[in-house]
């Protein structure tokens, strides 16, 4: 059995950045990355962007490291292998090919998986997900001959992919279980702005609906809704959310909730084991509670901090994460933790008739997150207000005034 000083499970941006920062801090310690996907680090975010999806930029732009990079950094890349068992007592991991790797320090950077769609017929050919490079290759191939797309779910992947399908010349119907697009992460007013832009670009939006069955023999021919109506289609994209497949970690004695639980140093309850990226449910010191964040920047910065801590530093993770997505001329920016959970307050601001709206999410006296629709220019100010934990409790009326300059909250 080979034993590594540092063993990283997951070769995405979190795992790769961790290995890189370990190498900077420890020039000699042995490092391996085990990754279910056979590919070296690539840009997951690019998969659903027009440049790549529509083939406007060379395919090679997807790679974020050269093949030789791993050897240069003395990092063993074990691609196409999945970790299936973490020994509850000894520091070793079993892989799907039956081999075992020992470790002194372990990082779980396994990201998330696309949630599998459970309706009858979902295994038919023509039903796609979008998480990995291989997934998107399948979708890119399919759109060459497909004409009618059905997109299931109103979230990030649907938001971007409805536009990709339209740009690729398909007609598109999006089916929402919810009352409006992107509920509950967006407020209703904001969701309606998104829907209006969709409809202006000939995307049909079907609300409060559920698919009863996928129609067709071997290949997808349409969907049957629970109200009895049918929508013919030859491709389906199921964008129904993500989940964290960490049973194997849990069985090794690591505490799991929605994700792999970690403290502010990204270390789990089991000494010597860390978690980073989409898979981590970490203690956010700005928010004062545990949370999960699924953005590129967060995964990259967590990889860095976890790597340094594995190499012996003790640095807390501290970041107000932000990301934005564009489709059909609408910009949706997310800052911090924008989910309106029980016990949190919200303030709406904006001018919906002009197509701009925002919801600020408050916890106690401070802002903890925001979703900004066509108000992305306020994202920087909101991030600073969150980071500095500015007391806004006496200023709610100002926050609700769309003309109020949020940067003035930063002035003493």
């Amino acid at each position, binding site marked *: 059995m080979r034993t590594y000083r540092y063993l990283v499970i997951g070769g995405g941006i979190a795992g790769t950045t961790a290995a890189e920062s370990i190498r900077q801090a420890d020039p000699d310690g042995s490092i391996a990355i085990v990754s279910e996907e056979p590919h070296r680090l690539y*840009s997951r975010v690019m998969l659903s962007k027009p*440049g790549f999806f529509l083939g406007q930029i060379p395919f090679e732009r997807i790679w974020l490291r050269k093949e030789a990079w791993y050897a240069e950094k003395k990092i063993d890349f074990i691609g196409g292998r999945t970790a299936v068992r973490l020994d509850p007592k000894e520091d070793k991991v079993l892989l799907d090919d039956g081999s075992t790797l020992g470790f002194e320090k372990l990082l779980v950077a396994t990201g998330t998986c696309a949630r599998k769609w459970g309706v009858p017929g979902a295994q038919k050919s023509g039903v796609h997900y979008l998480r990995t490079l291989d997934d998107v290759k399948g979708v890119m191939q399919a759109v060459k001959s497909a004409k009618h797309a059905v997109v299931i779910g109103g979230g990030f992947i649907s938001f971007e992919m409805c536009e990709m399908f339209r740009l690729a010349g398909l007609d598109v119907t999006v089916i929402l279980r919810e009352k409006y697009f992107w509920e509950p992460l967006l407020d209703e007013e904001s969701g309606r702005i998104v829907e209006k832009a969709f409809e202006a670009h000939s995307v049909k939006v079907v609300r409060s609906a559920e698919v009863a069955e996928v129609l067709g023999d071997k290949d997808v021919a349409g969907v049957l809704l629970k109200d009895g109506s049918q929508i013919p289609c030859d491709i389906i994209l199921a964008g129904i959310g993500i989940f964290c497949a960490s049973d194997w970690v849990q069985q090794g004695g690591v505490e799991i909730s929605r994700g792999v639980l970690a403290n502010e140093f990204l270390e789990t309850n089991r000494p010597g084991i860390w978690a980073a990226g989409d898979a981590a449910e970490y203690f956010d010191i700005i928010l004062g509670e545990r949370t999960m964040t699924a953005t590129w920047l967060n995964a990259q910065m967590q990889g860095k901090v976890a790597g340094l801590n594995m190499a012996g530093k003790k640095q807390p993770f501290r970041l107000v994460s932000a990301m934005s997505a564009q489709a059909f001329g609408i910009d949706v920016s997310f800052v911090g933790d924008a989910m309106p959970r029980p016990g949190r307050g919200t303030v709406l601001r904006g001018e919906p008739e002009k197509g701009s709206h925002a919801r600020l999410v408050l916890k106690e006296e401070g802002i903890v997150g925001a979703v900004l629709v066509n108000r992305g220019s306020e994202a920087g100010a909101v991030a600073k207000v969150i980071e500095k934990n500015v007391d806004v409790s006496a200023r709610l009326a100002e926050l609700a005034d769309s003309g109020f300059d949020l940067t003035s909250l930063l002035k003493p």
Partner: protein
Amino acid sequence: MSEGEKKIKKISVDRNLCISAGPCVFAADSVFVLDAERKAVLKQKGGKADSGPVEKEALEDSAVSDDVLIAAAQSCPVRAILLYDEDGAQINA
């Protein structure tokens, strides 16, 4: 790093590619800042900031090391940061 052999002469940001993810600002905040549209721009002498191309000499922080610029370019998930050497060849192609 093999990319570090040639000296960086010029830098630009491809605005169409930039998705405002922000890692470049973390990697080199003396050089990159997000503008009002949340696209990365280059901070230049005299307070100007745009997507370039800009000579490294004209950057506000013209003393920034090539390694830091390469790290920033490498941190960008859509590879929107383009670095050029003295001969005008792209270093991080």
